[in-house]
């Protein structure tokens, strides 16, 4: 028999599955802010936050919700070359395939967009935008200047990286929405709802308020760190369940296991 903890563990594999989206206070606020900004005649909106704060899943959510009402597209990771990026953009804007052996003429694309103005309102969600170089960003800006295309640019910040490498993002940002690490309440809701979605009621109940305090403390409220920690906790539970069930308490995850997981991931040190 497979341990019940296998299912629990798999709940916390890091993924961007839109079906797994969870309404949390912070994500609701960010969602509304983003939607509000998108309705304003802005050309560029910046969504940023530390890695693992839920930018990608939020963009996916927005896309999912609005795709039947608006002309909205989601570009996940940047295309490896400029050529491929404009190829993708060409398809979206003209709704045609690019003829074989041809390349996108950027000036013509801008002209094309100018003609679209007032007729179509296109929103493009650009994820992982820190990967675009200055040259590309400049072209993206020129396109947004036509006011036919609006860009939501998602980019993650770390302490000094955006000062070093990302100077070009700083001159032309018009509205900034920042995603932060979760509060303890949000993180608790996140962990519980994720488990409940998969009908793991007992396991959800075995994580108490006190445990969440420790989990929040070591992960600093970061969703990705939280996923990693929960995954490891259940991995350890799975081991005990199979090999030394005496060390496990099914109604309450022992603090020892949380600490072991945190040690393993380097959140705590000996």
């Amino acid at each position, binding site marked *: 028999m497979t341990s019940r903890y296998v299912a629990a563990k798999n709940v916390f*594999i*890091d*993924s961007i599955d839109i079906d797994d989206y969870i309404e949390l206070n912070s994500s609701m606020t960010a969602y509304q*802010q983003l939607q509000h*900004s998108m309705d*304003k*005649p*802005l*050309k560029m909106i910046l969504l940023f936050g*530390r*890695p*693992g704060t839920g930018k990608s899943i939020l963009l996916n959510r927005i896309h999912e919700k609005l795709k039947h009402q608006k002309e909205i597209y989601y570009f996940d990771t940047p295309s*490896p070359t400029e050529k491929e990026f404009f190829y993708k953009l060409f398809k979206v804007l003209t709704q045609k395939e690019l003829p074989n052996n041809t390349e996108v003429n950027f000036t013509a694309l801008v002209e094309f967009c100018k003609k679209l103005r007032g007729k179509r309102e296109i929103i493009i969600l650009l994820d992982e935008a*820190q*990967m675009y*170089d*200055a040259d590309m960003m400049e072209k993206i800006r020129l396109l947004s200047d036509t006011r036919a295309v609006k860009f939501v640019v998602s980019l*993650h910040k*770390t*302490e*000094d*990286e*955006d*000062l*070093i*490498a990302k*100077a070009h993002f*700083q*001159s032309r*940002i*018009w*509205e*900034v*929405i*920042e995603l*932060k*690490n979760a509060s303890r309440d949000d993180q608790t809701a996140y962990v519980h709802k994720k488990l409940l979605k998969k009908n793991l009621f007992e396991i959800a109940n075995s994580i108490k308020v006190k445990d969440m305090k420790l989990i929040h403390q070591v992960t*600093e409220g970061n969703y*990705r760190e939280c996923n*990693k920690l929960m*995954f490891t906790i259940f*991995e*350890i539970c*799975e*081991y*005990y369940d199979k*090999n030394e069930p005496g060390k496990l308490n099914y109604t309450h995850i022992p603090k*020892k296991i949380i*600490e*072991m997981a945190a*040690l*393993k*991931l*380097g*959140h*705590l*040190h*000996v």
Partner: protein
Amino acid sequence: MYDIKPLEEQWKKYRARKRRPWYLFLITVLLLSIVGAGVYEKKNFKLPSFKFGFLSKTTIRKSKKNIDIIVNPALLTLAGKNVVEKKAIVNEENALVDLPILDVMQHTTIDTVPKERNKIHLDIIETSAVTAYRDVEKRFLISHDVDDALFLAKSYYRKGNYKKSEYWAYETNKINENNVESLFIFIKSKIKLGKKEEGSSILRQYIKKTESESAKTLLSDIENNKL
């Protein structure tokens, strides 16, 4: 499943260390009360050193809480600019539709400085099999392990796949912004991809900040096309 025993050992050490201050505290209190009882006998109440220790402890706590907020200066100037430009268009409500409306920044930076993190396990073995890279890439999706990302960055760089090494160096840096090795591979990949200006400008900014000797050496290599 990995071996649980070493982890249990580690946890025991961790718990012992965590409890040590309490034992010490209890022993101190015990000793002091014995001494205190002796002193009391002699009608002398002064126990200055004990009190002093406590005071200094609380001040340290406080100063730790005050870790300063890092505000991006460029964003700040931008915020300033926005306010001015918004004022300028205030009286022309009708023209708004065609004017770029600039919003006052709603942006605040409240971010705690991340803790130093120690790595415990590392199981990457040098390999040439193509599938191994794919496995590590897959594993990274779950683990977001800095060592995996760095391994991929280094390997791809060595193999001359600079687009990929740039990507993985960047991923590494995402997880640990202080990882110098990844920064260098990121820059070197850029140079190899013909983005010399961009690469060296990032490096120059880094040198300005850190005065790093190895970075200076790298820069001179780049400038003399010795990469």
